[in-house]
């Protein structure tokens, strides 16, 4: 994906000339701007090169902000998708990085907001009437809970099994109420996905 295709004209780093905003920018930054400019014109090879180039940078950015590894991977995919959808808004006369990290920050905050909202809705819903689970369902449920990451399993147990209030559960888990909500929501989604397959 990152290698050059034989016969393909090289991407030249001239997108910023004469505009001032990219003057003095590092070579790598100018190269990314040129790759994105080519990608906007439909050059698939340049686009692949760009995504391979910015991938580690984006992932490092997310790793510093998202503790859960699975969630970090999901966020990474969301950032690349958002970059793809918003690529027409990039101005090649400016550095790519502020544009890219604005999108990454937005994706993180959107995910957090969405998870909290969904969890609040789940908390507000009345509990479903208990049903007698058959043996197969019980086994699948136990297995699914065991398969949850430790932090998510802990949130699930504290809130749904022990029935602790949110603040008390967060204190017990040594985290904030917001973070615990997010963990429990992820656990809830993971279980729902596993049990509806």
């Amino acid at each position, binding site marked *: 994906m990152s290698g050059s295709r034989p016969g393909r004209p090289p991407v030249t780093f001239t997108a910023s000339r004469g505009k001032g905003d990219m003057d003095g920018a590092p070579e790598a930054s100018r190269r990314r701007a040129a790759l994105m400019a080519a990608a906007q014109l439909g050059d698939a090879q340049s686009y692949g090169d760009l995504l391979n180039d910015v991938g580690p940078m984006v992932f490092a950015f997310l790793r510093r902000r998202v503790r859960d590894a699975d969630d970090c991977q999901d966020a990474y995919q969301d950032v690349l998708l958002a970059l*793809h959808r918003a690529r027409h808004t990039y101005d090649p006369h400016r550095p790519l990085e502020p544009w890219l990290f604005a999108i990454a920050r937005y994706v993180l905050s959107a995910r957090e907001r969405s998870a909290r909202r969904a969890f609040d809705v789940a908390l507000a819903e009345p509990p479903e009437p208990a049903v007698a689970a058959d043996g197969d369902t019980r086994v699948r449920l136990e297995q699914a809970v065991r398969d949850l990451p430790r932090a998510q399993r802990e949130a699930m147990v504290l809130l749904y099994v022990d029935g602790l209030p949110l603040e008390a559960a967060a204190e017990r888990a040594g985290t904030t109420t917001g973070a615990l909500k997010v963990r429990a929501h992820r656990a809830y989604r993971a279980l729902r996905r596993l049990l509806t397959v």
Partner: protein
Amino acid sequence: MRLPSAHDSIVARLVADVRPVRRLWPPVVRLAVWVVIAATVLVLAARVSLRGDVAGALGSPRYVLELGLLAGAAAAAAAAALLAAIPGRDPRPVAAAAALLAALSATTFLVEPAAPGATWFAGFRCAACIPMFGLVPWLALIAAVARGAPLDARGAGAYVGAAAFLIGAAAVRLACPVDDGHHLLVWHVLPVVAWTGISVLATATWLARRAVAPGPARS
């Protein structure tokens, strides 16, 4: 740095989907287009003006200052809206300039002397005309912002609303025959605030649906 296991597959998917895209025009060019639309609305308002002395009033420095501040605030708010549609561009300094100009405009209304003709009917007429004159600039700016990728839908909605309805207020200032300070504050300024609030609600909901990042609940 080790990349996620899905990196190669997602890159392959995105690369396979890459098509030429039409780049956004620079914000200055897009702002110029919007200013032309707004200026057309102002010219129309001057043509249908109920005040018989528009030409004479335009010779008054205070009147011209009021119009200039309103139009300047609207243009700055429109610039903020267009910047808000581009990731990584900070609209806040321009938005602060818009707020300052709008506040100065309201201050000039405050020092307007009392004048005859400030009836309730005239007030309702002005309040109703502001959204009418602001509608086309609002639609044009919404379309321009939606073409981009606004990351702060509420902020973008506020800037769009402020820009459009400040132009509505400038148009009504051209058309309204009443120069009374209280009339201007109550029936010209407050509707702008109210319609900007409505624009935030309407635009934010719509723009949020077009968000570039779906988030986990919608994925």
